[in-house]
């Protein structure tokens, strides 16, 4: 598994559920001791992600409005192939789709603190 240097790591979380989005962001902020960006829909996230200052790791729920997680993954990987895209879902059918789409990780919901600590595996 290739890794990203912790000194520069930028992470974005995309989930339309405020409680989940805030929880995931807080855990990751604590993990890496860096600020974490968050977006409530795929389109707003993409507007930011396509820029030059794009995050190194994005963690997106599959079921988000605007662009869904798979659409966001495809666009993000096309633009930034070396960066990491992790998908979260409450639907078991999405796991195989995530694998086929080239996601770097699949986070099955409900995600726990220790599950999120494993995201650190992508960071040196």
């Amino acid at each position, binding site marked *: 598994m290739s890794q990203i240097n912790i000194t520069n790591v930028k992470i974005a979380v995309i989930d339309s559920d405020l409680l989940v989005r805030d929880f995931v962001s*807080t*855990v990751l*902020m604590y993990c890496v001791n860096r*600020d974490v960006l968050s977006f409530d829909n795929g389109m707003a996230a993409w507007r930011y992600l396509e820029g030059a200052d794009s995050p190194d790791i994005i963690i997106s729920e599959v079921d988000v409005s605007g662009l869904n997680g798979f659409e966001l993954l495809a666009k993000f990987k096309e633009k930034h192939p070396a960066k990491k895209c*992790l998908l979260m879902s409450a639907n078991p059918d999405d796991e195989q789709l995530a694998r086929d789409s080239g996601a770097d990780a699949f986070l*099955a919901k409900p995600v726990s603190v220790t599950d999120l600590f494993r995201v650190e595996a992508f960071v040196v």
Partner: protein
Amino acid sequence: MLRVGPSSGEIRNMSGEDIFSSRLKLLIIMAKAYLTGFPIGKYRKQAIIENSRYVFYHSLQLVNKIAFFKDQDLKVQAGIAFTDDMHEEHIFYQRTQLLAVMVKALAEGRLKGHFREKALKENLNRICEAFIFNFNVKDVKFLKVA
């Protein structure tokens, strides 16, 4: 592809209860990391304060909800008995509320002195016993650096 989380049969949306329980576990880890002497850092401090606030207000809601049933008149009217389990829950959420205050204070550098630290350890142990949560922060390498 890395795969984390429950098995496919147990996948579901996260409830408010899931979030509270996960945030409480995070708060316990934060307190244990502090007591172990791990560094905090700017954003980790921000995460600790945000998480403490959430646990505090959610615990407060739960304490108030249980206190509602504790009221003698309401109990009779609603035909609901205030059981020993509810009493234990009431104490538990008061402890989680106290933990949130303590952890926020430590992030802000206000939890000074031997007895305050002792009180934090005791409260933490009681919560972990009731919550059945055992986590060794020394196993988490990234917590050792800020």
